[in-house]
């Protein structure tokens, strides 16, 4: 069994779309001046890398990793094993999303505190200020 040219093209296109989106959001984190914009870009960067991790476990003509019938028939279990996608990246990404949310909310609180102290969220102006 092998994939056709068109299927190969679409899989490659999905991969490159995700990589280019990650590149654009890295530009947003590094080069945009506003701290709020940096946080928005950081959330997009996390999203793209989480999806890239899940994409590693993907295969064509597959089903989700959830068993639908609860009987001990070994033939059905073998069929499930060969047709489902990889559950391990999904389990790791699941916790990564929730912890990423908690850490990003902490970053938002830090940005609020920066605004209370410096009266601006422009990173170039913050660099010039003292104290």
């Amino acid at each position: 069994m092998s994939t056709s040219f068109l299927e190969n093209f679409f899989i490659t296109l999905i991969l490159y779309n995700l990589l280019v989106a990650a590149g654009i959001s890295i530009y947003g984190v590094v080069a945009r001046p506003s701290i709020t914009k940096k946080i928005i870009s950081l959330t997009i960067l996390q999203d793209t890398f989480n999806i890239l991790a899940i994409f590693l476990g993907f295969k064509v003509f597959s089903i989700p990793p959830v068993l639908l019938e609860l009987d001990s028939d070994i033939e059905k279990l073998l069929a499930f094993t060969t047709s489902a996608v990889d559950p391990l990246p999904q389990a790791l990404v699941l916790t990564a999303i929730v912890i990423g949310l908690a850490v990003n909310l902490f970053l938002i609180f830090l940005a609020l505190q920066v605004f209370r102290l410096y009266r601006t969220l422009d990173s170039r102006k913050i660099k010039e200020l003292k104290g």
Partner: protein
Amino acid sequence: MDFSLVLLALFSTIGLIFTYLAVIEKDLVKAVIFSAIQSTSYVAVLYLLRAPDIVLVYLPVTVGLYPAALLFLVGKTERVEEE
């Protein structure tokens, strides 16, 4: 031919377009909304990648909680990003 690949390519392209718009936009409220649209298209991508668990956690987090928290931040600080 696995038809879900076509939809996957389509939705990931929409995600790429709105990532660019969110990063480049000067008005931060608009940037948050573009980021929410990008997240919605990524929800479709995750569903088509056969990850229903991640869809359930990703939908409330990135379409509900992130925009809300970021809009609170923008409302309490400054709205326009200066060049």
